[in-house]
């Protein structure tokens, strides 16, 4: 099944996201490889949360399940384990859709963190809940350094743009960090560079991204004034 099957064959009931939007999406979906924006994915998750919209789920499944599986395969998991994590991840999307907060994170980020937790769960013996700071029930005990906190949630699109401006070596190390089990050591071996270089590229890359996003924020605030 591909993305294009979304809401054409199963369009049983009107969706909450409005008909004009809906038609536009159908058009997009009919183009092979057309990508939805982050806002589109967020609407689909909301549709699951508000009315258990199976069609919305199918679109999310068709896009994200194969990517989660691929991600897990690249992390070195067996095809069976990767398939299982992809299924469990999407099952959580279906069951916990109401926990998704579009103000806090992009859908891809949310699904990434679910998959990450499923992967850790699979390999641990401890049955207690995984310590997860994104869990809404874990309220901050006290903000230790409030001056470091900002109200602004990071914007995914802005981040992706910023990522593209990173020097290739820094971007490569950041991306590789996500698919290695012991990222720094393995990356050092794979790229045949010293461990210290891996670490400094991660730091440089992240600090550039931070700066970049902060500059954008400052510009935005300037415009608003």
């Amino acid at each position, binding site marked *: 099944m591909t993305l294009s099957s979304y809401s054409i064959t199963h369009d049983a009931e009107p969706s909450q996201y409005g008909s004009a939007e809906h038609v536009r999406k159908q058009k997009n979906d009919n183009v092979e490889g057309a990508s939805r924006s982050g806002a589109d994915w967020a609407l689909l998750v909301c549709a699951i949360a508000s009315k258990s919209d199976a069609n919305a789920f199918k679109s999310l499944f068709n896009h994200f399940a194969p990517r989660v599986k691929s991600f897990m395969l690249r992390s070195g998991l067996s095809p069976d384990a990767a398939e299982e994590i992809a299924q469990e991840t999407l099952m959580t999307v279906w069951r916990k859709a109401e926990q998704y907060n579009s103000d806090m994170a992009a859908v891809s980020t949310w699904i990434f963190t679910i998959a990450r937790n499923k992967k850790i769960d699979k390999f641990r013996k401890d049955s207690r809940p995984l310590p997860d700071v994104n869990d809404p*029930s874990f309220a901050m005990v006290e903000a230790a350094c409030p001056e470091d906190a900002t109200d602004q949630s990071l914007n995914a699109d802005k981040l992706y743009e910023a990522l593209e401006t990173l020097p290739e070596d820094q971007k490569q190390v950041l991306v590789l960090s996500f698919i290695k089990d012991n990222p720094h050591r393995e990356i050092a071996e794979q790229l045949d560079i010293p461990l210290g270089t891996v670490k400094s590229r991660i730091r440089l890359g992240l600090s550039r991204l931070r700066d970049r996003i902060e500059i954008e924020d400052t510009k935005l605030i300037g415009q608003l004034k």
Partner: protein
Amino acid sequence: MTKIIHHPSDETLLRYVSGGYDTGYNLVLATHLSVCAKCQKTVELQQLIGGHVLEEEKPANMNISASDLLRKADMPVVETPKPLGSTYSKKYGFEVPAILNSYVDGDFDGLKWQSLSPSIKQAVLTVDGKASARLLWMKPGHAVPAHGHSGEELTMILSGGYYDGDEAYTKGDLHCADHESPHMPTAMEDQPCIVLAATDSPLVFRGIIPRLLQPFFKI
């Protein structure tokens, strides 16, 4: 509240975000994150990158369809126990962060401590694979004898503080010590120091430390 000075490095947080750590480390880092807005911000940025990496994946073939999975969704759900909130420990005089509270069954004051020496007590919270997390209680002004690590040791200060070399670590700080740096944390004089520490070698304190402590018992 004192300001947090010592934070985990970007690489440490990145490994946490990408799921590369065992439970003990996850517990220590999550506990620090629950009180540190600065590190939360970094994690948020890294999770965004993770989402981007996921988006960029070349799709793999799934064995089942969305409809198949939805049919499975009718099966009963095994609920994981609900996490507890934070509570104030009367006995030790500090707020036990929510994440840690689940690991002491909501009863920090009722913890069973094991004495390693007259000045140091421990309570092991979780052992998962090679990694473990334990609480350590240090008497004011007393030191954990110099020790090295077979791997990375992450220590979160829950109450009080300690000195290690030239550095002072106080409530909320996260101290990252690697195997190359043998160290000797010494609790500050004003109050006992309670820390949460993760190591990837559960035998460090059971085997090596008691042996190191033996001369001290004789004093």
